[in-house]
C-alpha cells in the first residue's frame, strides 16, 4: 500500500501532550516538515522555552535544549556562535518572548543573529493556568485581569512582529495564523522562508503564530478558532513585515 501521509522525520514518536484544540501541535508539525524539506534535521538544534512548550524537547527529533524563561534567544546566540554550521531555532510563547524575555529577543534580533524564532502568541499564559500575557487583548478576561485587561493600568497588547521589524538587524518577520487550511499553508510558507533566511546566512528571522488556548480561554476548540479570527486577527494583522528581497 502506498503511504500518502505520515509523521515528519523531524518529529519523534512521542504523542503530543498539548490540550485538545491547542495549536502547538500544528506549529510543531509545520516546523518539522520544513526541517525535513530542507534536509537540515541533523544540523538542527532547537531551544525549548518555559511554558506549555517546554516539552518541545521531547517532540522534535533533533538536538534540543531547554532554556530558562525568556532566555532562549541568548542561549541560541551562544549555540550559533559556537556551532556556526548548525540550524538553530527557538520556540517561545508570549509570556516567554514578549514579557520576561523582551531584552533577549530585542537584542538578538538587533544583532541580526542568524537564527530562527517561532513565536507562539495565544494572548495568555497557558502553563501557569491562564494569566494575562503582554499580548492579552484589551478587555480580555484572564486570571490576573479578572475584570478584563484595562489599558489604563495594564497597558496595551504588544505587537511583537511590528515592533521587531523596526530593527535594522532583522531579516525576515511574518505573522500567521493556523485556524483554517488556507492559513496553515501560508504559515508553512512563512516558516520555510524563515528557515531559508537562516540557511542562506541572511540573519535573524521570526514567525509570529497566532494560536489558540481553548483550555484557558474557556472555549471549545471550534469556538476558540472563531474567537481568534474575530478578535486577534483584527488587532494582530497577518502578513509579512520584513522580507529580504532574495528570499521568496
Amino acid at each position, binding site marked *: 500500500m502506498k503511504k500518502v501521509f505520515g509523521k515528519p522525520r523531524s518529529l519523534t514518536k512521542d504523542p503530543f501532550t498539548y490540550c485538545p484544540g491547542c495549536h502547538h501541535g500544528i506549529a510543531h508539525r509545520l516546523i518539522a516538515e520544513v526541517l525535513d524539506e530542507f534536509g537540515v534535521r541533523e544540523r538542527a538544534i532547537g531551544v525549548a522555552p518555559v511554558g506549555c512548550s517546554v516539552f518541545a524537547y521531547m517532540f522534535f527529533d533533533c538536538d534540543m535544549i531547554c532554556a530558562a524563561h525568556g532566555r532562549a534567544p541568548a*542561549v541560541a546566540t551562544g*549555540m550559533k556562535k*559556537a556551532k556556526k554550521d548548525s540550524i538553530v531555532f527557538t520556540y517561545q510563547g508570549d509570556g516567554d518572548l514578549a514579557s520576561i524575555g523582551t531584552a533577549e529577543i530585542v537584542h538578538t534580533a538587533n544583532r541580526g543573529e542568524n537564527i530562527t524564532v517561532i513565536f507562539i502568541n495565544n494572548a495568555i499564559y497557558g502553563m501557569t493556568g491562564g494569566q494575562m500575557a503582554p499580548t492579552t487583548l484589551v478587555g480580555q478576561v484572564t486570571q490576573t485581569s479578572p475584570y478584563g485587561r484595562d489599558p489604563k493600568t495594564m497597558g496595551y497588547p504588544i505587537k511583537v512582529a511590528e515592533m521587531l521589524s523596526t530593527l535594522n538587524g532583522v531579516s525576515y518577520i511574518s505573522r500567521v495564523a493556523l485556524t483554517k487550511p488556507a492559513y496553515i499553508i501560508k504559515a508553512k510558507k512563512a516558516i520555510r522562508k524563515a528557515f531559508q533566511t537562516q540557511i542562506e546566512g541572511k540573519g535573524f528571522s521570526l514567525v509570529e503564530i497566532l494560536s489558540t488556548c481553548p483550555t484557558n480561554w474557556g472555549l471549545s476548540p471550534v469556538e476558540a478558532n472563531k474567537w481568534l479570527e474575530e478578535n486577534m486577527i483584527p488587532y494582530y494583522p497577518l502578513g509579512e513585515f520584513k522580507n529580504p528581497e532574495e528570499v521568496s
Partner: protein
Amino acid sequence: MGEKVLMKGNEAIGEAAIQAGCRYYFGYPITPQSELTAYMAKRLLKMEDASFVQAESEIAAINMVYGAAATGVRSMTSSSSPGISLKQEGISYIACAELPCVIVNMQRGGPGLGSIQPGQADYFQATKGGGHGDYHLIVFAPSSVQELVDLTMDAFELADKYKNPAMILGDGLIGQMMESVEFKKRKENDLPSKEGWALTGCKGRDKHIIVPFSLDPYEMEGINLKIKAKYDSIKENEVKYEAVNIENADLIVVAYGTVARIVKTVISNAKKEGINVGLIRPITLFPFPEKIIAKASEKINKIFVVEMSMGQMVEDVKLAVNGKAKVDFYGRMGGVIPTQSEILTEIKKCLK
C-alpha cells in the same frame, strides 16, 4: 620556562583563558573587571572560530555561555558582584544541566550597588550555590596575578573534568593590579570526551537533549543525587590550599585572596615582635580545605579568620574546627581593605 610578562590581573585572566582554549566569551561591562571584557574583544574578534559578544545584560551573557557550553566548546563570562547576582539563574541551570564553563567574579564591596573597591562579601554566593536549588561551583580564590593565570587554566580543566561550572573568585584589587606573570606550558591532561552529550547536530546518532528539569520529583531527586556524588568526588580530590608557618605557631590565621597576601606580610612583621603567626590560605573555596583546618585546630587554642566581609568564610572555618579551638573573626566591609598594622593589632588582641 616561558617568558615573564607584566600584566594587569584582569587581562591576564583573559590571556590564560585563551591559552586554555577558550574561544567564546560573553560579557557585559562592569567595574572593576571591564579590562577582561575589553581584552577578550580585542583578541577574539580577530580570531577564526571564535566569538565575542557584548551581551545586552549579565543575564543574557550567562545564557549565551549556557548555549555555547552546550555545544561542547570552552566558554567564559565575567563580571563583578552585582552582575554576578544577575547571572545566578543561568548558573543554576548550567549546574543542573551539568555543563562546563568558567565564570569570573572580581568582587567589589556590597551589598546593593555597593562600591567599586575590592570586597570578599560574595563568598556565600560563590560557595553555597548562589542561585536556587542545591548545587555547587568549583571555586578558586587567587591571591596573585600569577595565580589568576594558573587557576584560570585549572578552572577550565576541572570544569570539563566534572562537567560543572567553575568560578574564579577574585576581587577588584587582584584584577586591577599589575604583576609579572608567566604562562607556563601545561601538560595535556586526559579529559572526558564531550561527544556523548554535546549538541552538535544529530548526524549519525540519536538526538542529544539538555534538560535541566523534571516534573517527576523522584527523577529530579535523581539529578540531585547525581550531582551530589560529583561534589563528593570534588571534595575528595580537588582541595587546594597553602599553609605557611603553621607548625608551632601561636595563632593560625585563615584568609584567602587579597587578605591572605596582606596577612603574609603581617606574619613577617609579627615575627620581628616575637609573635609566631601561621596562615592557612584556601586556594579552593569549594571544595573547602576543612581537613587541614581541623588538623591545625587540634594543636592550637585559637584560629583567627580575616575577611573583607561581615564574616562569611568564618562559618566554614567554624564547621571545620568543630569546637576544638576558639575562632575569632575580623572583617572590613564595603570595599575597605584591612591594613597590615590593623591586622597585627587584632592578632595581638587574639593572643591576650
